[in-house]
């Protein structure tokens, strides 16, 4: 194996080497355990890095430094935050349902970690190569909503319950555009397996990649997926359930100390796994963007793309105000759902036109025009229904 290929497969080789120390019947189990250890070590590490990056990024957007006292450039801030959250008093309300209250953050974290099992992090680097990987991921992702409801319900607090119900309603309504926008990828690839989806995007024309995001339906699907992902993970501008929403302080009001840190961890890990999925479905997974950059290891590309997605989320958070709950739901059902359905039709048309005489540039133009006009029209309808729009002002004379 050449050096570049060895670097690309370094973790796989490491895994095989360590498993070689164990007897043959134990080896599959050891390989899986090593994979799990790698995921459990890597992604919370990225979580720690993200908390610092978020605060520093937001700070720089706001013309100030972020935290910079703990460690060089503030890198060790998560250590301080971790110690703080571990040493805080764990308050459980007297009237709360203690068992459910205890289990809710655990369910969240376990469900989120399970989602990482089908994410291809590099070439040959997926923990479980399921044929129905996509289905598994979305099924597990829906069970995170269960933990939010458990948190709200067990607190026996009318506020928390209202907050939890709103959060669950938000997440359920955005599941539909999320799934529909990923179905286009399945249609075109012809498989539910995440590994096959990434491999289908790994070719190059000239030096340009075959990523799905560079097609009209792929771009629309990607945009819809990202917006739905923001809503699923309760990130700005959809973070009313957990923002200072004035009255209902959120489903995790009654949590303090380490359990709160677990909720935080679960939420951020959910953000990583959905971002990782968006990368897998639309951005070519572990593929390089240009053919002459293929010497960089595949896992490095995946993590770079993940960092780019995180940076984009932080950028959005620093810029956008929050949407109100009913406006959120309006947007999901009246804008995103029609666009997602139209995207399905356009993707089908793309596939159909590709085999006929109208292939090549023509199908690009047709599909892009259809999507663009639909976007503009739906946008106008959405804004006009509530009489929104820019205004001009007069002056007194």
């Amino acid at each position: 194996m050449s050096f570049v290929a060895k670097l690309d497969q370094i973790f796989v080789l490491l895994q095989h080497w360590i498993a070689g120390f164990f007897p043959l019947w134990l080896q599959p189990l050891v390989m899986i355990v090593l994979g799990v250890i790698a995921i459990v070590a890597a992604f919370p590490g990225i979580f720690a890095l993200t908390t610092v990056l978020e605060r520093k990024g937001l700070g720089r957007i706001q013309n100030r430094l972020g935290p910079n006292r703990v460690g060089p450039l503030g890198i060790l801030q998560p250590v301080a935050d971790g110690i703080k959250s571990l040493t805080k008093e764990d308050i459980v309300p007297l009237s709360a349902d203690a068992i459910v209250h205890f289990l809710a953050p655990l369910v969240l974290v376990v469900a989120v970690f399970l989602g990482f099992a089908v994410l291809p992090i590099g070439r040959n680097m997926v923990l479980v190569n399921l044929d129905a990987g996509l289905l598994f991921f979305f099924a597990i992702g829906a069970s995170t909503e269960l933990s939010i409801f458990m948190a709200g319900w067990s607190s026996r607090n009318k506020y928390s319950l209202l907050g939890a119900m709103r959060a669950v309603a938000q997440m359920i309504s955005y599941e539909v555009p999320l799934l529909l926008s990923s179905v286009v990828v399945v249609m075109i690839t012809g498989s539910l397996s995440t590994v096959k989806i990434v491999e289908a995007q790994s070719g190059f024309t000239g030096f340009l990649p075959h990523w799905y995001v560079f097609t009209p339906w792929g771009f629309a699907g990607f945009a819809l997926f990202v917006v739905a992902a923001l809503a699923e993970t309760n990130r700005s501008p959809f973070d009313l359930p957990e923002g200072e929403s004035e009255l209902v302080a959120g489903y995790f009001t009654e949590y303090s100390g380490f359990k709160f840190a677990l909720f935080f961890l679960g939420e951020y890990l959910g953000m990583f796994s959905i971002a990782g999925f968006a990368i897998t479905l639309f951005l070519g997974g572990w593929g390089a963007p240009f053919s002459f950059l293929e010497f960089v290891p595949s896992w490095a590309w995946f993590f770079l793309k993940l960092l780019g997605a995180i940076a984009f989320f932080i950028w959005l958070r620093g810029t956008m105000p929050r949407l109100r709950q009913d406006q959120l739901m309006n947007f999901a059902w009246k804008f995103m759902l029609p666009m997602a359905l139209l995207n399905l039709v356009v993707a089908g048309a793309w596939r159909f036109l590709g085999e006929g005489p109208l292939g090549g540039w023509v199908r690009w133009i047709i599909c892009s025009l259809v999507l663009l006009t639909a976007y503009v029209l739906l946008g106008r309808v959405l804004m006009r229904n509530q009489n929104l729009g820019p205004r001009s002002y007069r002056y007194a004379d």
Partner: protein
Amino acid sequence: MSATAFKSYRPPVIEPSEEGDELLEVAMGPHHPSTHGVFRMDVALDGERVVRLKPVFGYLHRNHEKIAETASYLASMPYTDRLDYFCSLTNNWAYALAVEKLAGFQVPERAEYIRVITAELTRIQNHASAIGFLTQEMGASGTPLMYAFREREKILDLFEELTGSRMMCNYMRFGGCRVELPKGWLERVQKVVDGLPKFIDETEALLTGNEILMARSQGVGILKPDLAVNAGITGPMLRATGVNYDIRKIDHYGIYDRFKFRVPLGDHGDIYDRYMIRVLEMRESVEILKQAIPDIPAGPIMDPKSKIRGFRPKVGEAYGRIEAPKGELGFYLISDGTGNPYRYRVRPPSLINLTVLEDMCLGQNVADVVLIFGSVDIVLGEVDR
């Protein structure tokens, strides 16, 4: 007063309403997620709609008017700084105007120019902060607020060079200004003013066309013009409903007649109009500053007839009012010939603008109540005095 009045948090009470539905009663405050100070709102909700809203304030009452009855006229001047603590120079001017009316002082021209320059700088930094706080409550995680504060720091540095203090300026005196402009101050003001249009453009690029901001603020918290006039609302809130009432144009106080500036008016009276009126007023203030700074004449800055100590105006009463950034700020003084006023009354624009809070919030979503409250732009020091 019962013990519950002192608790800062009251648990929600569910009481049956007349229709048989249950109303959820919530106390929002005095520790607020928004940043306006110690203020409580007792809100009764039917689901998500507001059915009843009672503002409860007085947490910051400091006996300003009573102190003024035992302190001399000059000693009340530093206390007026602390009324609307964002805009201390306009508070000083309003009080000085009232006393000048009472005692018949003439303010020299140079002092009038200095007053206009400082008042318009105050207006700019107040409106920038108000917009910043409003968008902070909308959830823009403080970005427009930090930009506004960046510009505000420059203006506060100018105030510190002129008066010695960034916020509690204590600069106006009866008959003029306290101290002469430091060397080079006008050039520095010119530099700051030259950089302001770019800041306003950036704020507009970030906020004005933002669809989410439009969705949250257009059509929310509508105030009708006749209700506004009946309730005595003044300031940007009134102009946002479309009523043309700017005391700078009506009273012709100071030397505002010499400057060409326009008064922007809104059409809908919702939160978006109030936000845009503040942005447009910032632009107009920049216009006034651009005209005032080159024109300032040399000369004295105090009326020679005025005394610092032992000031005893003749018996009488006077009401001096100005267009403060928040509305009409007025001082009503009754003098009985001694060194202390017999009655000293402040007309606080923030308090009077708050009286229509319930009317604006009825039927609105509870998530919008904090936004409507933020768009009124109050300062608790003025509401409670």
